[in-house]
């Protein structure tokens, strides 16, 4: 499982740093390293670009797993350089940004757009497989999630746009309901295709979603 990110355009980052002179940069050694958006190479590259653009970089670090509790230790170790900056430019995914914000009073500016949680099908190919909807129906859809794999998140079968196994929004994209049909057929469970699913219950996990374990 990986948190998939896309680095924001440099101009957008510069826009957020408009009134800020000194910046401290934090990267992450896990997901954004693996996606090549916020690991050590990208942190150093960002440092150079910021300096070229006239910013002072008071320091940088790459936290091994920015979303876990060891982040606090790392931030304490780098306290001085962080306090020497007017803000932190955070290059982990948004989960890391939230974690970092717990320990730093300075503004924390995200350098990434966090897209989705994915599994890696083949090296470099990431696919969203779960939107954490709170009511898992994989048991009735042959293990293919229509909430994420169907463009419209339909739970009662294909829409009228299904086209020779492809989705109406993109000829390259498989129609989730064709995939579900094919796999149910292989499993000899086509009767599930006729099962009615009532409207989803969005109250199952009201927002903001929280739980105490």
């Amino acid at each position, binding site marked *: 499982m990986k948190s998939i990110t896309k680095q924001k355009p440099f101009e957008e980052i510069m826009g957020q740093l408009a009134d800020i002179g000194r910046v401290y940069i934090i990267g992450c050694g896990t997901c954004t390293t693996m996606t090549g958006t916020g690991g050590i190479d990208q942190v150093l590259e960002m440092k150079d670009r910021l300096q070229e653009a006239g910013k002072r970089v008071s320091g940088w670090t790459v936290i091994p797993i920015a979303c876990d509790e060891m982040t606090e230790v790392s931030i304490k170790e780098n306290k001085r350089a962080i306090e020497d900056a007017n803000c932190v430019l955070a290059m982990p995914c948004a989960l890391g940004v939230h974690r970092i914000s717990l320990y730093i009073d300075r503004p924390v500016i995200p350098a990434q757009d966090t897209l989705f949680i994915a599994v890696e099908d083949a090296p470099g190919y990431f696919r969203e497989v779960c939107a954490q909807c709170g009511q898992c129906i994989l048991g009735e859809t042959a293990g293919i999630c229509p909430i994420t794999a169907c*463009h*419209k*998140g*339909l*739970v*009662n*079968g*294909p*829409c*009228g*746009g*299904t*086209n*020779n*196994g492809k*989705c*109406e*929004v993109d000829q390259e994209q498989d129609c989730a*309901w*064709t995939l*579900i*049909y094919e796999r149910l*057929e292989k499993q000899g469970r*086509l009767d599930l*295709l*006729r099962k*009615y699913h*009532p*409207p*989803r219950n969005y109250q199952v996990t009201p927002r903001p979603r929280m739980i105490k374990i």
Partner: protein
Amino acid sequence: MVSSFKDALNSGRFVITSEIAPPKGTNLEQMHHHIELIRDKVDALNVTDHQSSVMRFPSIGGCLAIKEQGGEPILQMTCRDRNRLALQAELLLAYTRGIRNVLCLTGDAVPVGDHKEAKGVFDLDSSQLLRTVRLLESGKDMGGSDLDGAVEFCAGAIVTPEAQPIEPQLAKFEKKVEAGAEFFQTQAIYDLDSFSRFMEYARQFPVKVLGGIVLLSSARMAKYMTENVPGIFVPQNLIDELSVAPRGEVLAKGIEIAGRMISALKKDSICDGVHIMAIGREEVVPDILAAAGI
């Protein structure tokens, strides 16, 4: 009587519906003109609901215009733009204003339209919306509360008889029947043999099926549809017929083809009626009917 359209469906005669597209803007002149031209020649007129996810004057506005002009409207409702509160509320409004027919659709995807950055809602899907219509008829809403005044509709849905693979489409069709669909308007059909096979299957269900007739206005359009529109297959002989038509007579050829198909469907009682979609050329609907001998 729920609606004159429902009476027509139950009368056993060949039923004709067509559709109008509301304008993009507030100039209603052309829409009124199309309604005027067609309303007396059909049993009911659909009004599309931001068709192809292109923002327009609302479906319910078009239906009210049809009522005002003495016609029988079918309110097309998609689940793309409204959550379950808004959908139920609109059904209440429609009922109080004399609209008695509703076509329940999931709706096209947002990115195929002209507001690509919008949020698609899809809180419900077509089969859930059909059940919602039936629930409101029972005097309850989806929250479980009692309604002070219920609704009553003749409710329908769509089906794509040429969809590939066909099995999931048929499963969905059956779900819609179970959800309470009384009539179906089909996606455009051109291959009457394969449509007849679909009708043999559909006949086992207690629903009325109106075959979808989309006017072919040129060979290019026919080719485009067969290559790009999901579930539409235009046989080569029809494309050829259009491409050899002399310049200036191509539209007349398209009208002739549509008329021919309608009379064949009617003559052999293949289905219960037709739904004519002239897409942007609504003014020729009377000509299509004349060509069909209706």
